[in-house]
């Protein structure tokens, strides 16, 4: 297995590479370019990079104006300030106009770690997936992040791409067959399906190993695209395994779990359980400690699976 990479690191590398061939690509930031990793692009293509200062609302308003003038725009800040502070600008100036803006939001979820509750967003998937026409992506590793980002940038319309601060294990090989809107079955099993997204995909794979030792075979699905959700994959999981656990680094209210439950309730009712941030704020700590304390580790997935399959 290759070394660990943060999805934000992959994003930074992707931008520098894509900038070479896509002449209309504009990258924007709000004084966090060293953290969001847009700084590589800013050095390589200074004439196509705009730092908007600590002003997230104007970051996305300006991004809309550039996109509606024919540019492809990747605009970055921390997920909290993109999805939270600038929500209404993204909704009205980018969503309503269907502008070609990729909101590339880094430092999502509790794995932002030591910065604490003010910077840990658990609401962004819920907020972004309510905007009509918004595609919502949450890659699980650096390789799939690059593949999905490339498709997003080559597809017209608004995207929300959720990226993390912490380095994560590589799951996919370079150039793997990952497509926006098509979930990936990473491991097959008959007893239960864990549908995970983002860094919880890695935790789900660890949980599968543990459960296998107890004779429980789980299917692990990477739902990297939360909107539009891959209903076919959910339906197959419901019919073939009879139970679904969702796992995400996001509130249990309104995120991946909500999206899967909405689909399952109307198409293929099935026993479900949810792994995610409980309805409370986080705190400072190391990512692994926080995932454990707030119930988003491999052990928590194991527990929820056992609860469902008895």
């Amino acid at each position, binding site marked *: 297995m290759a070394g660990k990479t943060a999805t934000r690191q992959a994003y930074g590398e992707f931008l520098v590479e894509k900038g070479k061939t896509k002449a209309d690509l504009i990258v924007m930031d709000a004084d966090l370019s060293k953290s969001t990793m847009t700084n590589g692009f800013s050095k390589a293509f200074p*004439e*196509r990079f*705009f730092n*908007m*200062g600590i*002003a997230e*609302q*104007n970051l*996305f*308003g*300006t*991004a*809309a*104006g*550039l*996109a*509606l*003038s*024919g*540019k492809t725009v990747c605009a970055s800040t921390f997920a909290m300030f993109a999805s939270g502070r600038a929500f*209404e*600008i993204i909704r*009205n*100036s980018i969503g*309503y*106009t*269907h502008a070609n803006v990729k909101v590339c939001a880094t430092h999502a979820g509790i794995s932002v770690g030591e910065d604490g509750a003010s910077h840990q967003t658990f609401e962004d998937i819920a907020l972004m997936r309510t905007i009509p026409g918004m595609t919502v992506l949450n890659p699980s590793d650096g390789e799939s992040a690059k593949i999905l980002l490339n498709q997003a940038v080559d597809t017209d319309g608004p995207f929300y791409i959720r990226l993390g601060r912490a380095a994560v294990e590589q799951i996919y090989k370079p150039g793997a067959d990952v497509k926006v809107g098509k979930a990936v079955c990473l491991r097959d099993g008959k007893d239960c399906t864990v549908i995970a997204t983002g860094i919880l995909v890695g935790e789900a794979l660890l949980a599968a190993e543990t459960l296998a030792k107890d004779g429980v075979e789980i299917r692990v699905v990477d739902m990297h695209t939360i909107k539009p959700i891959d209903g076919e994959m959910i339906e197959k999981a419901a019919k073939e395994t009879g139970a679904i656990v969702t796992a995400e680094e996001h509130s249990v209210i309104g995120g991946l779990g909500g999206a899967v439950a909405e689909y399952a309730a109307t198409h293929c009712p099935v026993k479900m359980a949810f792994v995610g941030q409980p309805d409370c704020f986080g705190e400072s700590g190391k990512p692994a400690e926080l995932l454990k304390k707030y119930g988003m580790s491999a052990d928590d997935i194991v527990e929820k699976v056992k609860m469902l399959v008895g």
Partner: protein
Amino acid sequence: MPDANTIETIKKAATEIRVDIVKQVYFAGSGHPGGSLSAADILAALYFHEMKIDPANPQKEGRDKFVLSKGHAAPVLYAALAERGYFPKEELWKLRRLDVMLQGHPSRKTTPGVEMSTGSLGQGFSASIGMALAARIDGAGRVYTLLGDGELEEGLVWEAAMAAGHYKLDNLCVIVDWNGLQIDGRNDDVMTVAPVDEKFKSFGFSTLLIDGHSIPEIITAFDAAKAVKGEPTAIIAKTVKGKGVSFMENEAGWHGKAPSEEETKKALEELGGEL
């Protein structure tokens, strides 16, 4: 000094626009006449003199762009666009109804000539920054943005202003429709926005203070803005809310209210139009 013919053409257009504002809001039964009437002369000057546009080809590359950041004044924009030939005037009388092109606030997806969907204050100005940056990259076109004075209370306006100054957007011209009134009353009573020109100046703008109902002053200001290099321009246009309809003038109550049939007839009589 602009020639007499130009001024006469713009004045005639402004009167037509005012007539069509009153009729639109009357037929719709709701909408915002006060802040539409105050901006009629500014939009007439933009659409009938200043901007390089082609109504037959609204998406023409390199065109000048107008953004109505005070989106609630949609009737003045629609009247100007229809008068200029972007769509038939019959559309105006269907404003705010189901399944029509003219939404309560401007929507670029449904209406030819509308450059930005606005209505949530401050966002049109912010988008204008992006349009001006893009126009600079592409080497063509100027961007004109109309802000309300109450709109200046939005924080986003000053984020956008700071960026316009920082990026020295001399292809951007902001016009403030300074009629002094907002929904709940006088700006000075609700939230002090004055001094407006000093604020823009301190954010790196070249500023001009004009009578927003004097056509010669408006077009002279646009010429001056084009001559400015290295700075965006803010034209602070002193206007009268409800301008042209005696009983609407300087009345905050006419910010967002439709006239009755009787009031409409009286208004049109004053403006020289008819139902």
